[in-house]
């Protein structure tokens, strides 16, 4: 077995040193009748065999890069420079542990410090943590943090919030003190969605959670929402599922957010069928000690040299145990590195340029769809994604187009089954979408509608 270095001779010498005759003497604490069960699984395979086996499985899937591709709804196909994947595969990063031994982990700690700063700058907030599992789990952590900060229990989830995120919040808080009020989605009228969130806030509200751009793509000014929340001593939690939008659109911090949670996948990370992704979590300085997750801070070493350590860990489970702010331990370290390397390649200039190219692609797609009978664009504002109303069932249209080799977007019914949105389709166009891709989609839609 290629990964197991011990030879039969080694094993015997080691058993001799230990003073036992057979390996199973070391397993004597396991009840004898359950030791060494028959395991009905295949025997070991060579590297070549594994590669062949898994490659065949992978070949049954349609890769995003191989077809005209318009699928988004919280996960986006962007071009990631080759440098990013090279850097995260360096063994010193890939095979390191959580940097609890800072003398030999300054590489990890410095990039976390850079990551925290980049996320804070992008979101327009004071501080960010070292990452969460993903956007959806970060969202539920933010709701619980708002309860700790405000000592109130009622969280309002706006209709603009991705259905999975809302479900994660509901599931995760079902045994806590939080009370969740989930508002209905309204793709045809985002202003009404915003107003409903404003109207739902009262003195008992701990937080209002609003996604911007919303799950149906609309971009809104959240200042009125922030104002109403703050009047009621509630926090505004802004959710971003498309962090690339921050290169073009005003930041949540500028709009008055108290906590920003986001899915960072778009920068540096591939689609990966939904994970691993990267939870972004940023807030203002005064709430730092109520934050979940790891934080990296600056300090000096014994010689006075600048260095970094994980800090404020008295919030965390390994110190506080049942009184911790969260049970989170592992985060998304390597995905955060990918984000940071990509962000460092982009810089503000590159980010603004790529963001603008995203918006342009979506504008081009919208303009092209205006000429298709049976397609009505619902959005007046959007970043790189918008919703359309079709003359037919959207899931059926998407399946028919998939048969033609076009991945046309996400039917709203996949996220909101039974909500009366069966004719709504969510379409994304990033910088990876070409004019040919748009032509193919338009031609395909004309055939199936």
């Amino acid at each position, binding site marked *: 077995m290629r990964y197991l270095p011990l030879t039969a001779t080694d094993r015997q010498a080691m058993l001799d040193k230990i003073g036992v005759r057979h390996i199973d003497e070391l397993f004597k604490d396991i009840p004898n009748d359950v030791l060494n069960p028959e395991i009905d699984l295949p025997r070991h395979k060579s590297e070549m065999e594994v590669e062949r086996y898994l490659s065949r499985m992978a070949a049954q899937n349609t890769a995003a890069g191989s077809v005209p591709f318009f699928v988004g709804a919280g996960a986006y196909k962007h071009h990631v420079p080759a440098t990013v994947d090279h850097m995260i595969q360096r063994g010193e990063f890939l095979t390191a*542990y959580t940097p609890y031994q800072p003398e030999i982990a300054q590489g990890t700690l410095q990039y976390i410090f*850079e990551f925290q700063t980049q996320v804070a700058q992008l979101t327009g907030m004071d501080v960010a943590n070292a990452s969460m599992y993903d956007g959806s789990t970060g969202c539920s952590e933010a709701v619980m943090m708002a309860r700790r900060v405000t000592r109130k229990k009622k969280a309002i989830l706006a209709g603009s919030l991705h259905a999975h995120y809302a479900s994660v919040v509901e599931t995760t808080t079902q045994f806590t003190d939080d009370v969740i009020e989930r508002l209905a989605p309204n793709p045809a009228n985002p202003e009404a969605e915003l107003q409903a969130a404003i109207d739902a806030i009262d003195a008992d509200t701990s937080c209002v959670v609003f996604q911007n751009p919303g799950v149906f793509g609309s971009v809104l000014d959240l200042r009125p929402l922030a104002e109403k929340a703050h009047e009621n001593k509630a926090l505004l939690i802004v959710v971003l599922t498309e962090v690339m939008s921050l290169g073009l659109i005003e930041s949540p911090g500028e709009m008055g957010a108290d906590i920003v949670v986001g899915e960072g996948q778009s920068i540096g990370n591939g689609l990966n069928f939904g994970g691993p992704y990267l939870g972004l979590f940023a807030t203002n300085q005064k709430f730092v000690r109520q934050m979940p997750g790891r934080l990296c801070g600056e300090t000096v070493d014994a010689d006075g040299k600048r260095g970094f350590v994980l800090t404020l860990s008295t919030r965390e489970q390994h110190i506080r145990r049942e009184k911790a702010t969260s049970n989170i331990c592992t985060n998304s370290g390597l995905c955060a590195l990918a984000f940071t390397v990509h962000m*460092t390649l982009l810089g503000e200039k590159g980010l603004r340029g790529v963001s603008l190219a995203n918006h342009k692609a979506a504008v081009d797609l919208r303009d092209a769809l205006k000429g298709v009978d049976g397609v009505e664009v619902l959005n007046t504002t959007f970043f790189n994604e918008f919703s359309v109303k079709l003359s037919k069932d959207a899931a059926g249209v998407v399946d028919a187009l998939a048969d033609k080799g076009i991945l046309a977007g996400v039917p709203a019914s996949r996220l909101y089954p039974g909500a009366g949105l069966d004719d709504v389709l969510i379409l994304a166009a990033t910088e990876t979408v070409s004019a040919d891709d748009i032509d193919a989609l338009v031609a395909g839609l004309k055939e199936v509608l």
Partner: protein
Amino acid sequence: MSMNNQGRPTSAGAATENTDFESFSGHKGLRLAEPLIFELGSTETTGVDVPEVGEFEMAIGGLERTSEIGCPGLPEPDAVRHYTRLSRRNYGIDMGVFPLGSCTMKHNPRLNEKMARLPGFGDIHPLQPKSTVKGAMQLMDELSHWLCTLTGMPAVALSPKAGAHGELCGVMAIRSALEARGDAREVILCPESAHGTNPATAAFCGYKVKAIPAKDNGRVDLEALKEALDDTVAAVMLTNPNTCGLFENEIRDIADAIHAAGAFFYCDGANFNAIMGKARPGDLGVDAMHFNLHKTFSTPHGGGGPGSGPVVFSDALKAHVPVPFVVKTDDGFDLVEDADDKSMGRLVAYHGQMGMYVRALSYMLSHGSDGIRQAAEDAVLNANYVLASLGDVMTASFDGPCMHEALFDDRFLKDTGVTTLDFAKAMIDEGYHPMTMYFPLVVHGAMLIEPTESESKYNMDQFITSMRGLAGEAKGGNVDRFSGAPYHAPWGRLDETQAARKPVLRYSPEE
């Protein structure tokens, strides 16, 4: 001084006697200084091709970001150099023995990385039509089959994002099952040796946490447990093998007692590496157990994630698993994404850590049923070899045999002036990552050593030589070697008190 025929000195130290000088660059040979990107780059610089976009009418409702963002860019050559230089300040499994108890720092095969990057796995969207991801559903089904077979459990939830998230999934399933029978209960019992995530998770689900006492042999006190078990107890959370590196030899009596009280048995599977292929938790009365794919099944730790924490369930709990999950159909597979009344709901957006599923299955296929058992045996053999080789110079906390990790405490350092922390830092000077220290909490100055199956006998012997040497130095009174350690790391000990007192959590230009 000897010279070669170009007149250059040929022996070290011959050119100058004074080697204790500061370089002009701040570098020290291969130890290259590297500032923060904020001190290097500018917002005008980029390392990517910025797409050329002509004039067009935007549709963002007048909300254009006009204020400066502040993120500097680096051109590609400098970006590569920046992160390469940072990487060289890190210790990883690729560099040497990483005996971090409870963390299972085993070799990360590069085949797994290659497989996860196949476009058919790495470049598929979680919401593209199911007809276009048949292979992905098959992979999830196959991984589920391996995990269920290895544990002898009937059901699995793949989606939890990490071990602690898996614990949450497990305890939520327990609470869901209890509530379904109208009896949520109030208390979860955890031993004092438990991972911190266990009590944190229990509290998260609305339970009070009570401690289970341990016996002198490092195992649960069965009689005391029975005493504590009443109709207020929802579950008992046990790590097995436990965090002292020992198998709970009364586990079936423990499970029987838990079930007799109407409670559930949650097993923290962080230490499954010791028993995979050797024993199945399903045969031992476990109701729910999470895996850490990033421990047992070799997906990289990545400097703190991403992890993956699937949970297996017994028949009593399987109705409550979260969505999504894969089911077999007449013509292949389907992905169930919407929760029914019994399901606890949804714990993550999309379908969990697919990239980790691919890597873990690649590991499992490579090892096979035979290699998985062999890996567990080698991990346990290596740990017992450590125990047998260091037992006379360090103090083992409990009698062997141990499972895949060997626990020592600081009694051998008594009156030396050397602490467990000092000893660990001195290991850095020896070229090793320190073992886990001060955990578990049940012994004083704990040192938990887990070599894993990835270490050869040669590596083990070198490691043992270093550890024996250090133990000898400590007992011989050479305190300086420890109190200022590490001396040979790129950084000395960091001031954690200063970091916490006035936290600086981001770069600010005015500093």
